């Protein structure tokens, strides 16, 4: 799948933002006054900037409000609704804490639940697609939730918890890759089932047109596969392993946390880029792609 930078930026930034807002929601930490303002400002900046970035890949962004209407069937619509609800609830919690009413328990927990639900609905947009077997897996929601909570824990200044969550998320990432590498084969979709042709080996002889098209650009995107493994190692190290080690061994300070955070975001961008670039859409089979990865 084509790795659209706006979508990569959206899912990484807003994930960490909603992770932080979830921790603030449950009152752990429960800052007051100016400190509360700073914590919430960071959470909102990340979550909202991500949401704004996500509108950049729309063909008709001026109609974006319509995306709030189809929550009964569409995970994308559910994500939009849940994100707004989470931001409103978190906003009310923030106001209470900044202006001295303290942490409102019910409101805060409700906000946290909606933040988690927003991250999960983002992941379900991908996990619900049968056409991309690599995504159509339980490890996808686990992956999005894992990285969001790990990033959120670090932003919420829970150093030890963040270190542990970074390692847990790294393990989920590994599982996602291992399961993902055989997902297309396990899905059973091949060029033979795509064309229904029998009686021999089916090979794409000629594409429909000499040039590329929307489908080949959007869904038959091929990573520079020779670098995929290197990028996985770099991504996993930067996103999870190095920050965890840093938090465990370096003295706890804003500098350590800042370094770990910077490192984590760099790595997360790499792994999220791979999440799209490595994903095989079954329509690629019609164009003769992915044949090495099918049964």
């Amino acid at each position, binding site marked *: 799948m084509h790795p659209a930078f706006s979508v990569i930026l959206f899912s990484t930034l807003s994930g960490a933002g909603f992770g932080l807002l979830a921790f603030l929601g449950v009152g752990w930490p429960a800052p007051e006054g100016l400190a509360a303002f700073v914590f919430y400002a960071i959470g909102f900046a990340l979550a909202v900037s991500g949401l704004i970035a996500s509108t950049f890949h729309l063909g008709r962004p001026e109609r974006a409000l*319509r*995306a709030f209407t189809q929550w009964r069937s569409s995970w994308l619509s559910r994500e939009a609704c849940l994100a707004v609800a989470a931001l409103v609830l978190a906003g009310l919690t923030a106001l209470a804490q900044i202006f001295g009413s303290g942490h409102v328990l019910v409101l805060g927990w409700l906000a946290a639940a909606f933040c988690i639900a927003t991250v999960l609905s983002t992941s379900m947009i991908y996990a619900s697609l049968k*056409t991309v077997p690599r995504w159509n897996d339980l490890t996808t929601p686990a992956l999005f939730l894992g990285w969001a909570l790990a990033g959120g824990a670090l932003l919420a200044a829970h150093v030890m918890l963040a270190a542990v969550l970074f390692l847990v998320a790294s393990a989920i990432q590994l599982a996602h890759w291992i399961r993902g590498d055989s997902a297309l084969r396990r899905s059973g979709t091949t060029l033979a089932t795509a064309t229904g042709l029998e009686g021999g*080996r089916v090979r794409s002889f000629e594409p429909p047109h000499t040039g590329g098209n929307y489908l080949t650009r959007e869904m038959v995107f091929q990573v520079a596969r020779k670098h995929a493994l290197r990028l996985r190692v770099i991504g996993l190290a930067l996103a999870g392993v190095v920050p965890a080690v840093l938090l465990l061994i370096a003295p706890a300070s804003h500098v350590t946390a800042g370094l770990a955070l910077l490192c984590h975001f760099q790595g997360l961008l790499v792994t999220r880029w791979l999440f799209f670039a490595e994903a095989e859409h079954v329509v690629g089979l019609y164009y003769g792609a992915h044949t090495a990865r099918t049964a």
Partner: protein
Amino acid sequence: MTQLPPPSEVKLGLVIDLDTCVGCHACVTACKGWNTENYGAPLADTDPYGAEPSGTFLNRIHSYEVQPEDGVAQLVHFPKSCLHCEDAPCVTVCPTGASYKRAEDGIVLVNETACIGCGLCAWACPYGAREKDPVEGVIKKCTLCVDRVYNENLPEEDRVPACVRTCPAGARHFGDLGDPDSAVSRLVAERGGIDLMPEQGTKPVNQYLPPRPKDEPLDVLAPLLEPVAETPDGFLGWLDKALSRLPGGPS
């Protein structure tokens, strides 16, 4: 509304005969022409006369080679457009309600004034039947020529999709696949029509008729050609023996 309607009784769709299609792309051209001049936003062409021509098409023809274990390879031309699936995943993922399946005849359409061009429906379709138009920024797909098939301003023989009307080989058939007695349903039953990617669970309405098995290969020249003598005699026999004695030949 992007929830799917209950299965309709009338299921309009296409039956595509892979045995008959000659791969002329006339249906592609007819489709592009009709759907650029009529219903909805025109189908864009970017850089049409330049180095990298690209464009939006609702119907594309692939070609595949089927190579049996032994015997000659067979070339199959493979037209592909929206299959107007019963369980259309492209409809339910739409966040705006722009994508919908008609309750009365099962045609899957896009309300182009409500489409935000997020492209999620194109991701959800396993067949590559939806394309985001680079100029209009909305999703384009086969309408089954809904503006022809019910159009009483057209002569009756023209009230079929443009691709069906134009096919010079008679490889495309249009009709009601919900009616077991319709001509298209009888054709599907007779020829063993198949679903594409049945494992995706989309229950496509459009059906494909597989190529008929080839006749026994007939070599018309065989009886006229004498087989080469394996053990020559006379002058050729002497030459064969003499040459075989020389070093460097096959042992």
